């Protein structure tokens, strides 16, 4: 409603408007009787002027009532068109976006500086009794005031220390904090005023849920003031590390997603502080470009890397940090079924061939393969393994299977090669459901031979780096089909002619699972004799070994908790003394603790608010490090339209009161509180009273004049 009142309770004073009416009717009853000499003139005058006088009497009464009503309205603090804030019973929760993009320099300083200034001005313009709380929302959502304070008592110095961090703006997190703050908010409603550049971010699906929780506390109205304009600026959005375990010395292509802000802009790649590559963006400015850096994988260990671009309006996203993890050798536990007499020299399912393919011997071998039969598999083998390969396995014991499932969920990688049709029931009923393929039904088909292998996508990351000839060679491989598995939403890498998937994978929580509906026996197919057998198998196992919990925590974004998996061999439940973490931008190391989550130990540190590298130490020894980058969504020119933003929030059930974006800073207060009508109403009331006095005095003065 455009009309609102600062003190609506005073509107009850409007009842006083009845007083003139009451007085009018009471006074009418007091009629004095007088004898008079001659009524001739009185009758004539009465006949001529009674109607006019009656009208004037009612007009006077109306003016008195109107004057009282106007005065009551004026005292009640009427405001027209106020969007919120300063209204009776309303508290104001101010949210300042301190995400990385708010550090963008524009004509009048950074966006954040403007937001802080606007916030300061708005507080100053609010009525002194309005309760105010201020949140900063970047890497973390933090209240600036200990509790809600009257606007007149807010120490504005708290805004001096507000600075943009490297985090993203998480509106759902803001609402979560708003729920907590609103619980203690005085009054009957809260106006949430957001100062933000509305940089486009990926929305979480639980916005509606959080919004409902917020509204359950108190009615909350949202106001948004978008700060900043979409100005061309570049940044490094993402560095895509190979989705597989790297081998020292191999040449890889490191891909970076960048936004150049100038034509032919150079981007540099540094590893361990040394510039090792450069790429130049081509094409239109301000679009997202993919740049490939050629890199020779350095020796085993954790390497600090970064991709850098020339400095622009937002320096925070001009450098993107990453950790390049190069394992010494990826441990592969090769679990196979017991050899049968007819299995030949390759063993059950061709496991010996696979062992040779993964570990051909020599110093450069990337894998260390440990073959073990199914009945000899123990959970201790899993703790030391990076990848587990099951080749036509015999049924595993219940304990081993449970351990295997937990290990995969915790970040392990499993490759199942199943070419033996006698295993169909075991696959269908036990092994595949345990590995995240529930309801998988093995369909038996007539035995087909000579089915060509098809590449579902030649751009699959797993095939990255293979040339056309290599890919053609892969498609020359033929297979013998005994049975078929269903794809069921998995990522299919290879299939057979006819469409049945041959190799497909799925992510199971932190781990990866890959299924191959075949094995390496010569009668199963001719992959074993293909020139691409060794590269393909190594790639498959590398891919499975790359996405483990160990490496998943190497690269995080600002605002995420730092999680580090300690080196293998640590005893579960053990503790470290003197564990410290040095966060990016931090002045000095902070103590942290070691936490054990089941069998996988993690080190948890503070939440970084700046991009860079976080380093863990214990008693002076470096345990590990983590690269912290700003969220990619903070780069670029994509600012969201306030109307669309409001529309989405409206759909989520939040009341959106208005858009303050186009208002001049000096108008923010009046926009919030609305136009103050009280002076006008006072003036109007005075005018009405003067008119009433004039009309009423007309009769009185004429009497006095004649006397």
């Amino acid at each position, binding site marked *: 409603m455009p009309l609102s009142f600062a003190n609506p309770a005073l509107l009850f004073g409007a009842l006083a408007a009845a007083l003139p009416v009451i007085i009018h009717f009471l006074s009418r009853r007091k009629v004095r009787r007088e004898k008079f*000499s001659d009524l001739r003139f009185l009758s004539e005058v009465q006949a001529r002027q009674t109607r006019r006088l009656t009208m004037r009497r009612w007009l006077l009464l109306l003016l008195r009532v109107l004057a009282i009503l106007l005065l009551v309205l004026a005292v009640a603090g009427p405001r027209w068109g106020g969007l919120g804030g300063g209204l009776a019973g309303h508290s104001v929760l101010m949210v300042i976006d301190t995400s990385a993009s708010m550090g963008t320099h524009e004509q009048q300083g950074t966006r954040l500086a403007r937001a802080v200034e606007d916030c300061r001005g708005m507080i100053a313009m609010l009525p002194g009794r309005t309760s105010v709380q201020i949140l900063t929302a970047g890497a973390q959502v933090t209240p600036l005031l200990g509790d809600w304070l009257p606007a007149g008592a807010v120490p504005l110095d708290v805004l001096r220390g507000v600075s943009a961090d490297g985090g993203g703006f998480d509106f759902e997190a803001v609402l979560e904090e708003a729920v907590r703050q609103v619980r203690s908010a005085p009054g009957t409603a809260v106006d949430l005023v957001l100062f933000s550049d509305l940089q486009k971010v990926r929305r979480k699906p639980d916005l509606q849920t959080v919004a409902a929780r917020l509204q359950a506390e108190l009615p909350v109205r949202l106001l948004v003031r978008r700060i900043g304009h979409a100005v061309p600026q570049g940044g490094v959005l993402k560095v895509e590390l190979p989705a597989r375990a790297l081998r020292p010395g191999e040449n890889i292509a490191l891909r970076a997603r960048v936004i150049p802000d100038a034509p032919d802009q150079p981007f540099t790649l540094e590893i361990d502080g040394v510039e090792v590559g450069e790429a130049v963006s081509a094409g239109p400015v301000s679009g997202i470009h993919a740049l490939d850096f050629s890199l020779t994988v350095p020796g085993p260990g954790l390497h600090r890397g970064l991709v850098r671009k020339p400095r622009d309006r937002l320096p925070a996203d001009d450098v993107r940090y990453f950790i390049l993890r190069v394992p010494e050798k990826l441990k592969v536990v090769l679990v196979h079924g017991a050899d049968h007499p007819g299995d030949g020299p390759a063993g059950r399912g061709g496991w010996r061939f696979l062992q040779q393919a993964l570990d051909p011997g020599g110093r450069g071998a990337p894998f260390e393969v440990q073959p073990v039969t199914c009945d000899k598999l123990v959970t201790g083998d899993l703790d030391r393994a990076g990848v587990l390969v099951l080749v036509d396995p015999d049924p595993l014991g219940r304990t081993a299977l449970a351990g295997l499932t937990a290990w995969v969920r915790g970040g392990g990688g499993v490759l199942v090669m199943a070419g033996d049709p006698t295993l169909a029931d075991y696959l269908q009923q036990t092994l595949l459901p345990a590995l995240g393929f529930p309801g998988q039904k093995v369909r038996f088909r007539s035995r087909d031979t000579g089915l060509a292998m098809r590449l579902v996508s030649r751009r699959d990351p797993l095939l990255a780096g293979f040339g056309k000839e290599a890919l053609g060679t892969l498609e020359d491989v033929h297979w013998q089909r005994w049975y078929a598995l269903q794809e069921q939403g998995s990522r299919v890498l290879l299939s057979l002619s006819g469409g049945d998937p041959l190799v497909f994978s799925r992510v199971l929580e932190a781990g990866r699972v890959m299924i191959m509906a075949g094995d390496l026996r010569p009668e199963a197919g001719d992959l074993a004799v293909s020139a691409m057998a060794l590269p393909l198998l190594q790639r498959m196992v590398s891919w499975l070994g790359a996405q483990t919990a160990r490496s998943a925590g190497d690269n995080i974004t600002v605002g995420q908790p730092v999680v580090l998996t300690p080196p293998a061999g640590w005893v579960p439940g053990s503790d470290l003394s003197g564990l410290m973490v040095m966060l990016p931008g931090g002045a000095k190391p902070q103590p942290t603790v070691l936490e054990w989550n089941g069998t996988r130990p993690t080190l948890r540190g503070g939440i970084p608010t700046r991009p860079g590298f976080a380093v863990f130490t214990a008693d002076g020894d470096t345990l590990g490090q983590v690269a912290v980058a700003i969220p990619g969504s903070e780069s670029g020119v994509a600012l969201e339209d306030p109307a669309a933003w409001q529309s989405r929030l409206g759909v989520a059930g939040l009341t959106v009161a208005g858009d303050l974006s186009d208002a001049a800073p000096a108008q923010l207060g009046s926009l919030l509180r609305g136009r103050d009508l009280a002076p006008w109403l006072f003036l109007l009331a005075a005018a009405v009273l003067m008119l009433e006095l004039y009309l009423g005095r007309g009769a009185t003065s*004429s009497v006095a004049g004649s006397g």
Partner: protein
Amino acid sequence: MTDALLSPETIGSLGRLDLIARLVVEGFLMGLHRSPYHGFSAEFAEYRQYIPGEPINHIDWRLYAKTDRHYLKVFTEETNLRATILVDCSASMSYRSDPKLPTKRTYAAWLAAALSYLLLRQNDAVGLVTFDEAPLQRVPARSIRRQLFQVLKVLDDLPDGHGTRVGAVLHQVAERIPRRGLVILLSDLMDDAEAIIDGLKHFRHRGHEVLAFQILDPREIDLDFRGEVEFEALEEPGRRVRLEPAHLGEAYRRDFGSWRDRLRRDSRRQLVDLVEMTTSTPFAQGLAAYLQKRRRMS
């Protein structure tokens, strides 16, 4: 001071009409500091030697030119003026807005008594006619000493009349006064202005000099009442008008003023002296008006 002594409030406390008449006239004459009897209503009798200190008004300067001596002209009184006083006794004359003030009728009676006393003291003949819608009582004009007693007796017991038809009554009275003389009308003239002027014209037609006193209560002029008032007509009991004088007063005063203006204007055309008085006006004003009129007649 004389005005204060002759004010209606003071005179009213005397009670007896003869005392009122005497006090008013003697007080009035004292205030004039000269005899009202010389210069009118008298005929030349002889000359006498001027004594220094006497007024020089009646020195015969023509004789002085011939004789080089100062002689005063001595007049003998005459009684050839017949004055008839008409007193309105209608119900409207019984109005007074303040208990401290006399009613218009009482005021008219006091003024009539004073005028009678003054006239008789000049040896003029005085008659009296009271009326409301018609003539009520009549005392024929005479100049004998008992005449004052007769007049005061009637004035002391004026009846409560009914309505007013001043115009018609003037016509009737005009027909009954045989000799030319002075007609003094004491009334509020609450009647149609045209009818009143017609009546006065009748007197003038028959050769009378007319002196009309319009006697009003102050509130009849200013209608100074507060709040809502229901007025009841004195002449028409039961007839009421309810209004707020605070709001209608201005229009009333305008209408009332117009009516009086017309009376004033038309009277002047008929050579009728109209003296407007209120019941709070000192009697001296009325007597002075009479004397002025008398002087013009002589």
